[in-house]
């Protein structure tokens, strides 16, 4: 059990992220965008749009999606996939919510550092 929980990293409180908003977690593997949807659910994606690398954390959050601030691609928060006619995907990082805290999957973050991981 200990081995299991140690794989989750606490990155902050849910309340630190505005509803329909996002915050950035800086990591050695690159920036991670942590989103909080209107319904309170929390998602994490690599903070790079699959189109031109725009910072998704700066986009407008609507439903379970975010619109990239650079060229208006809409990315699903649930899958990291581009929606509509656009194609591309940004890596998704599994999230756990525990007593108001947000935990990210350490392994998934580590994999971000590996090209094509």
């Amino acid at each position, binding site marked *: 059990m200990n081995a299991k929980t140690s794989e989750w990293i606490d990155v902050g409180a849910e309340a630190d992220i505005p509803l329909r908003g996002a915050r950035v*977690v800086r990591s050695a593997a690159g920036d991670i965008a942590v989103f909080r949807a209107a319904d309170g659910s929390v998602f994490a994606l690599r903070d790079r749009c699959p189109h031109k690398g725009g910072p998704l954390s700066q986009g407008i959050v609507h439903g379970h999606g975010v619109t990239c*601030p650079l060229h208006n691609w809409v990315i699903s928060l649930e899958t990291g996939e581009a929606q509509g006619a656009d194609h591309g995907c940004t890596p998704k990082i599994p999230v756990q919510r525990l007593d108001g805290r947000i935990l990210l999957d350490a392994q998934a973050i580590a994999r971000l550092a590996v090209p094509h991981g």
Partner: protein
Amino acid sequence: MAKQKLVVIGNGMAPGRALEKLFELAPDAYDVTIFNAEPRVNYDRILLSPVLSGEKSFDDIIIHGDAWYIEKGITLHKGHKVTEVNRAARTVTSEHGETVSYDRLILATGSNPVIIPVPGHALPGVLTYRDLDDVHAMMLAAKAGGKAVVIGGGLLGLEAAAGLQAQGMEVVVLHLMPTLMERQLDPAAGYLLQKAVESRGIKVHCKANTHEITGTDRVTGVRLDDGTVYPADLVVMAVGIRPNAGLAKAAGLEVNRGIVVSPDMRSSDPDIFALGECAEASGQVFGLVAPLYDMAGVVARQLTGDATAAFSPQATATKLKVTGIDLYSAGDFADAKDREEIVLRDPMRGVYKRLVLKDNILIGAVLYGDTGDGPWFFDMIKRGIDISGMRETLIFGQGYQGGSLADPMAAVAALPDEAEICGCNGVCKGKITTKIAELGLTSLDAVRAHTKASASCGSCTGLVEQVIRLSLGESYNPAAVQPMCGCTDLGHDDVRRLIKAKELKSIPAIMQELGWKTSCGCAKCRPALNYYLICDWPGEYADDSQSRYINERVHANIQKDGTYSVVPRMWGGLTSAKELRAIADVVDKFAIPTVKVTGGQRIDLLGVKKEDLPAVWSDLNLAGMISGAAYAKGLRTVKTCVGTDWCRFGTQDSTGLGVKIEKFMWGSWTPAKVKMAVSGCPRNCAEATCKDVGVICVDSGYEIHFAGAAGLDIHGTQVLGHARTEEETIEIIAALTQLYREQGRYLERIYKWAKRVGTDSIKRAVIEDTARRRVLFDRFVLSQSYAQIDPWAERVAGKDAHEFAPIGTLGLPQAAE
């Protein structure tokens, strides 16, 4: 043959219609001169209530713009009250001394509102509800908020009450009779109406006999006979109208309640017609538009020599124009011995229907809550059809006749050609279908233009669309309005109108009330809604930063690498050693990679890291600089040349004026960015003629230009008007900006807005109609009182701190495998 001279006194809807018919029948028969006591063109008085409630503007209700009078060769004297008709000399004379002779004269002097002569009726703050000036006075009074008392619970009184409430006042309606609108409604429907009005927060006091209006310098309240006192900052009397027949009486014409006319609409002098609310025909006077338009048609035909044309009063129908309350009444619905009635009550749905029959013929109908069958009942009333065959199901409406539930299209298809579709303008179904076929019409606007159907109060629009659909089949798409985005079928204009009409004051309220299809909108609609709410409810609506595009959320411009650019304001393009030194220091301190001079005469610092933004702003603030809003859908720059201070060609202080404009306008949010410029002479070194708003200084003052563009599209500006002073210039520019703020669709630049709504309507609102300009200006000033707060200083002080710092920083975790 020489043209005869026709003089018309009055420029309301009835004479407007008569002239339209006349020009249709005999375009060259008469030289026409109109005297209008109101200082404006002909407008649709029925739609004053939507103007008062903010759902429409004056431009929306104009029937004949200035161009129409010019095109028809009509001499229109605006603001000329006629003081004398000399029948012996066949002349009329206005108060300004203008004397014009006539061969034929039309008196269309309308009516005056009845003023109850209680003590205090002349106090300032006591108004009537009759024309646009009254509406403006009410809107002005409502701006201060406070309490209003409306005396009169008829059609006009209730519309006034709803309008004043929409403008933010607390409203009480006083009505002498036991139930509201007793002339159009039976007591049961009057009760339902009262409940609906009260549920909107308007207090209704029936059987209220006004004893006096209290106050010394201005109105403070209303006291009733029973001792009740209602405090009031504004009292509106809407108790009825009285034909305005004074002029006719002075001229020796026969006058009873109104100017007495025979069925050919001629007064006791056969060369003088009387028309509209001032006329009395068959012992009746008329206030609803349908009979007045009938009169107009008779006058036009008589003027062209058709002696058979005759007016006979018909049954009429009325509809209350208060958003959210559906009420329709037609014909004669008073109780009497020889009458029977069929009543349907459905209190849960708030529906009440009552049909009045006499000898198996429908003679009256009152519908509340569900008025869809109103025109069908009205058609049967007018045609006097024997309904014995459908008596069992009659009250359920047209859809239930013939056994099975028909779809609405079938109901319209079943209407005979002579069924009236548009009551205001007397347009029947056959006329619409014939015009569609003859002229190949394909849109509602085209049908409106060619038939006048749905061109007045608009309540028959749905029916007209169904008739068009019947004629054109599936190729007609009434939903040709471009929806805002995939989250709604409503277009921008509908959403804006409904925000005001339903008083929606938050994004969730809009989405709930207007049936948004998504849970919280999208990146297209949310910023638009956020802007509309800021514009429509200044000081009340709290900006939703999560619905702002990133640039407006963090008050800097995002760049392709995720860094930001920072542009401080330089008023009119002026800067100083102190400012430049502070900028240089900031560049060094934060290692800002690029510094560039912009096209708008300011300095752009590019490549600032997001976390550094508050510290950069703090240093710039200390040197006296604020945000240049280079990211905003709002006022950007006011570019200037050096003007009379330095330039040998300068005619005015263009730099000074530019600074004044910028200091007055900064901080305002607009549908899309607004760039301005002021040039000191027609050499135009500030390039003012490709800006959203530009000023060219000339010897005699300031030429104001607008609707230019120099981006994706290139457009030279158009001249809006000329101002003599800097103050007038600023007032016009602010009014123009406010009109754009209120009418523009989100992301629609001024030149596109101007093209859509028409340059003429904009000129009318901010140049010709100085009262309207002032109202717009005042609204802009009110909005600015909440907008001129430097967003940089706010964030330096700690606002939205979460925006500028990461939530956390991690090392590289070790992969477990």
